[in-house]
């Protein structure tokens, strides 16, 4: 097991290396002088020269990459010319809203989608099944910002139940914090629910006809314990896998949702940075989100052994 963990961990290194190269190349692919781009429109020629020396732009490209990656590994993403501060500090500042939104969405999505998927599989072919599957295709198809605005319009403007937009830090009080998170989380959760419910249904259907399920029923076990202990447990691996892979969708959705709901998180930072052509920030955010995605999927892989003890590494 330990050997597997180490091997699996080592396997993420080439993946992250490719990510780093791609992110590094983003800036080098631009036409023009990267130093001038980083320095921004209002920079003096001294600024540009300083940046060029700092990044080692006068050296060969491989050497530049080594310098850049060395800085990144030490947590130095450079300075944002737009926000006029260290990118690392900027990310720390913007971290809480995104973490809160992502956690809320994840909890909401999993706790809704798994029961829905199980229900659809259990009542296969009925109107319940068709409704869940129909809503799932719909959930995939309606873009997250359309869902967002429709919810704002109906729930916040027409009904007046929840605040329209904005974010309140957890430290400033829990009710205000959660009140402002409900709509964004629901918005972001919908596509994720569609994805998870679909896989849950397929995965549960496969197990539902297995011999051990028939045995469990034959010995007089109620439907609920059968579904929970015998079916869901054996159907868990694909579900957990898709929850992990879906993090990519979640991250993409965070960028959009934070813009719709005016939440000052990392997603909003990404968009602001791109609009301001603030490359050090864009690079840092892409790198960070990708690392999070890779790490979560590493954790997902490691949970397989606990979910299904038959899996040996």
């Amino acid at each position, binding site marked *: 097991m330990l050997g597997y963990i180490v091997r699996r961990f080592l396997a993420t290194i*080439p*993946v*992250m*290396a*490719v*990510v780093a*190269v*791609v*992110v590094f190349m*983003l800036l080098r*692919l*631009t*036409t023009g002088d990267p130093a001038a781009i980083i320095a921004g429109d209002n920079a003096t020629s001294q600024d540009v020269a300083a940046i060029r020396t700092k990044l080692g732009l006068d050296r060969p490209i491989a050497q530049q990459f080594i310098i850049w990656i060395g800085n990144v590994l030490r947590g130095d993403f450079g300075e944002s010319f737009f926000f006029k501060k260290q990118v690392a500090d900027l990310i720390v500042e913007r971290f809480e809203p995104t973490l809160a939104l992502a956690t809320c969405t994840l909890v909401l999505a999993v706790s809704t989608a798994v029961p829905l998927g199980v229900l659809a599989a259990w009542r296969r072919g009925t109107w319940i099944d068709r409704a869940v599957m129909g809503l799932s*295709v*719909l959930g*995939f*198809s*309606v*873009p*997250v*910002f*359309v869902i967002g*605005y*429709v919810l*704002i*319009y109906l729930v916040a*403007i027409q009904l007046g139940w929840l605040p*329209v937009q904005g974010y309140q830090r957890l430290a400033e009080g829990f009710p205000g914090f959660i009140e402002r998170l409900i709509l964004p989380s629901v918005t972001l959760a919908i596509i994720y629910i569609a994805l998870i419910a679909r896989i849950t249904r*397929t995965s549960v*259907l*496969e197990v539902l006809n297995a011999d051990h399920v028939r045995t469990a029923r034959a010995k007089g076990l109620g439907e609920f314990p059968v579904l929970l202990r015998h079916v869901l447990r054996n159907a868990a691996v694909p579900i957990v896998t898709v929850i992990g892979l879906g993090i*990519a*969708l979640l*991250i*993409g959705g965070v*960028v*959009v949702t934070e*813009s719709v709901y005016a939440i000052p998180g990392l997603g909003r930072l*990404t*968009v602001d940075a*791109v*609009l301001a*052509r603030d*490359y050090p920030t*864009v*690079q840092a*955010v*892409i790198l960070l*989100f*990708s690392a999070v*995605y*890779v790490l979560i999927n590493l954790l997902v892989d490691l949970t397989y052994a606990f979910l299904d003890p038959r899996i040996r590494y």
Partner: protein
Amino acid sequence: MKAVAEPPIATDFPPAVTTRLGVARHLRRHRSMVIGGAILVLIVAIAVLAPVLGTVNPAQIDPVARNRRPGAERTVRNADGTETIVKYRMGTDSLGRDVYSRVVYGARVSLIVGVTVALISAAAGLVIGILAGYLRWLDNVVMRVMDGLMSIPAILLAIGLVSLSRAGLRTVILAIVIPEVPRVVRLVRSVVLSIREEPYVEAAVALGARTPMLLVRHVLPNTVAPLIVQATFVCASAIIVEAILSFLGVGIPPETPTWGNIMAEGRALFRLFPHNILFPGIFLAATVLAVNMLGDGLRDMLDPRLAKGV
């Protein structure tokens, strides 16, 4: 994924769809594909016929008629003294542009982006996937690169790529293609890996077939069905990503009517004039839904084995 590879025995052929009953049953079985296809035909017709659907120039700014509600009318005095009544079916935006005309013309951009991205991704993914699946020495390198590309969430990679240069239609298409290609490569490669173990491929090798011949005659045809299905899903996702890029203000320039741009324009005054967001939103959702339904239907039809399970 190799369902199409096995030639069915004579008695197994599906009944020919010639009788009226046969057609009806066929349509019922693939209802989602029929509905999706019908909506899509409608949207394509709207896009093609945009100039004759009672639209005006979608980029025409009219300071007098800003922020009109849907259905509002205005009398315009012509140069020769006559009067015409202009009706804004979907209202106007904050620059006085006719939202109906913009929504109708916006269909063009969405469809062009969706179809182009699907075609380019499928073609690139097919070539890379077949090479990676067949040439062992290439496989490891290519797949590590693809793994890396797939680890960057698609929308972020697209945003990063459009930030490189002033975005236009071509940049946006390229920025959406690059994150999509690895997914197609993976699919094609998995088909190739399963096909190369088939006895008939082995037989062809034993008979002295050369690799290019083998790839074209035996491997390529097996990738067609899954590739078509994947391409429809790529198309749906490309339409969404384009709209998201435009909506965030990093996509196609704002004067071009795209559904994302119309919505981006309507953001500021959303509370007062929700029509700027709702109308393009409905069209966008309907188009993506139609493409997804078509894809689901195609998958069920082209890969019946998969359909039974799902």
